[in-house]
């Protein structure tokens, strides 16, 4: 029997996945939020959790370093999903990916066909595709965090980021002007692993499906 790894990130995904993991019979043997370990044993001897950065989860699964993973739809869209199956929406870590601008900024006027817009985001691919579909030129500025700052200090006209309650936007005088996609976390599976270790993976996937339903 081979060891199955599940790649997931600490924070919101792990928090909301914990009840699912419990129902599937994969409770971690120690609290991942407190432990500094990056590989964490579970109730089942053949399954372990691999703690990664949220945006790295698809990469670990794509290259087979973990057979399974949990990743937000935002991260998957950015990654492109090559080498992955994404059979199940886990319905956790729900939020929206939106375009946000400073209050008073004329977004409608700024995204006329052929216009040019400076956008700060960490979702470079998704943002490029979104504006390309509208026929709007964008100059992308890749940031790694605190996106809300960019319009305030004149770095960008708009940002593309995730919002759940909208509190951070509001506190910084920004508002969402367009939704790009609703986001929730998916169960992802390495394509080759599903073909070669189906006997082990299929029951786990089925168990997740039952836990979500």
């Amino acid at each position, binding site marked *: 029997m081979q060891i199955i790894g599940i790649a997931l990130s600490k924070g919101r995904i792990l928090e909301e996945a914990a009840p699912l993991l419990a129902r599937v019979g994969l409770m971690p043997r120690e609290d991942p939020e407190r432990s500094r370990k990056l590989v964490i044993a579970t109730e089942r001897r053949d399954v372990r959790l691999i703690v990664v950065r949220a945006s790295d989860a698809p990469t670990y699964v794509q290259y*087979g370093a973990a057979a399974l993973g949990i990743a937000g739809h935002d991260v998957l869209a950015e990654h492109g999903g090559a080498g992955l199956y*994404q059979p199940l929406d886990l319905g956790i870590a729900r939020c929206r990916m939106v375009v946000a601008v400073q209050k008073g900024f004329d977004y409608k006027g700024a995204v006329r066909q052929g216009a040019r817009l400076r956008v700060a985001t960490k979702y470079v691919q998704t943002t490029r595709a979104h504006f390309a579909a509208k026929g709007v030129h964008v100059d992308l500025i890749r940031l790694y965090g605190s996106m809300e700052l960019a319009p305030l200090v004149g770095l960008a006209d708009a940002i593309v980021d995730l919002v759940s309650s909208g509190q951070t936007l509001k506190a910084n005088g920004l508002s969402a002007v367009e939704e790009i996609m609703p986001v929730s976390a998916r169960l992802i599976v390495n394509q080759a692993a599903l*073909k070669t270790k189906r006997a082990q993976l299929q029951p786990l996937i089925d168990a997740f499906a039952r836990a979500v339903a």
Partner: protein
Amino acid sequence: MRWLLPEHIDDILPGEAAKIEALRRAILDRFAARGYELVMPPLLEYLESLLTGTGHDLDLRTFKLVDQLSGRMMGVRADITPQVARIDAHLLNRPGVTRLCYCGSVLHARPASVAATREPIQIGAEIYGDAGVASDLEILRLACSVLKLARVRGARVDIGHVAVFRSLVRAARLGAEPEAELFEALQKKDVPALEGLTRGLKKQTRDALLLLPELYGGAEVLARAARRLPKLPALGRALATLRRLAAACAIPASFDLAELRGYHYHSGVVFDAYCDGVAGPVARGGRYDDVGKAFGRSRPATGFSIDLRELAAAGALPPWRVKRKNR
């Protein structure tokens, strides 16, 4: 100078080179013994002929350069299969069945995966001019026998058929755009996206498309598909073909009815073989009946190809020693 090689390009040193060469000879001998004639297409061609009838993926994987003699754009082959199809359709022009095989280096502008070389050695065999399941069977058996020659461990094959999805789409008279979106979602077994995309389709079509991502596993999948998918003639024929392959396959086989790799040029059976020690598929094959059409002659075609370097690395072939001479 540090003599660094480009990324994903490396030298093959004596031990590995000897193993690859031994395997190359053994496989080409096997092909010859089974009646496959060797062809050697050129390393580069004008882009039009190199990429005709192939997908966008191949275009992205192809190195391009300008021919200083003609000023035309040329590409270094990233896949030999279309070249061999061109030879069959355009140069040989034989009536009846033609069996061809080939072995040569190809170049990938982008590596296929993070660990992949950009210069695989592609070896493969193709049958032209027979649309019957007997040819699919012969190719599948030949691929299995090559895996056996290389002494890989844990060899198994995953088989699909593009007519399953195609017949459902045709029966529902869907346009090119919804078909492309459904294709994308099925490739990823992205059930949530499929649920969105199939909303508004007829119930029978919708249920069938939503069932496809679940239809993978052992031969029992075929029985389940026959029971639960609509009774379309093309679909029935596809399932019958798969049943024949299931019964005759020499290594453990699984089936995946949502497997649509190469959907744009494949037309029937598609298969991927796996073995221990290789993360992705080690051999890929299938039927691609219409590729020759672009070269003036539509011929039924089926075949498979393998990266010899990957196969040699995975196989337990005994090292093929050459006595070193000391002078």
